[in-house]
């Protein structure tokens, strides 16, 4: 067990006992990751903020039920986020476009010439559109792998699967994504 894990366990124990400062430490540690996950699943910043707030309110309300021996706290938060995003998609059955403004800004800041930046933005747009055609489970995997840069073992814990199952799902996801991109090029 690493020092960070020990610290997190101690903080969690305090948070479960109702210590607000301990909960705010956990909040600071995970708010970026949860926001990013929701942002890429919903496609816009306003809904991402709204759902992120709901995730942490729900976590705070149910923290006494959290069982530290079961899943890591991060996995627990991701599961809350995943369920809330699923409800959000159910309520907003209309398909939403992925907001690209932030990515576009990052591309321009890399110092690319404007024409190249435009091509890159278009490519990114196509890629994100292809990702959004995947099943929620595959989208989750892509976000955890490429946005959060998590290992297969970490993703397995969050998604409640074995590492082998994640590896297999990952290859199927890449294949599906490639087919979807080829479809959009044609």
């Amino acid at each position: 067990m690493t020092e960070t894990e020990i610290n997190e366990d101690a903080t969690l124990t305090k948070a479960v006992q109702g210590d607000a400062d301990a909960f705010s430490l956990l909040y600071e540690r995970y708010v970026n990751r949860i926001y990013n996950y929701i942002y890429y699943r919903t496609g816009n910043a306003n809904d991402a903020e709204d759902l992120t707030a709901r995730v942490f309110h729900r976590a705070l309300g149910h923290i006494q039920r959290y069982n530290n021996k079961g899943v890591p706290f991060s996995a627990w938060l991701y599961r809350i986020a995943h369920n809330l995003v699923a409800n959000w998609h159910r309520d907003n059955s209309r398909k939403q476009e992925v907001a690209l403004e932030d990515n576009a800004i990052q591309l321009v800041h890399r110092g690319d010439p404007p024409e190249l930046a435009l091509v890159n933005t278009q490519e990114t747009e196509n890629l994100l559109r292809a990702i959004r055609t995947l099943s929620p489970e595959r989208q989750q995997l892509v976000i955890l792998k490429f946005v959060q840069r998590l290992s297969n073992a970490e993703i397995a814990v969050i998604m409640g699967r074995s590492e082998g199952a994640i590896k297999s799902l990952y290859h199927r996801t890449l294949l599906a994504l490639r087919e979807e991109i080829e479809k959009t090029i044609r």
Partner: protein
Amino acid sequence: MFAAQSFASQQRFVTEDSMLEQRLFSALNPVQVNPEFVDSLKVRLTSAPGVTVERRTDLAAAVVIGLGLFTGVFAVWMLLMARYFFRRRKAGSTAPD
């Protein structure tokens, strides 16, 4: 011949997978969360009043209902008594000597 073709096809898939992975890594950048949102949510979370569930006991409910009933019955009784005394006084004043 078949084995060579199969190996070539496998190699093509591996290359395509790694190219797609590169594209995904460069396209999917973590976005920066609005710091104002982070701070305001933190304040809302830490200053949120604790939810207290008020438990209403059966005894308290019985007392409230009993008091209500008693007040109602008492008011009706007072009205009836007032009417009775008023009628008696009226009958007394009109009675022949």
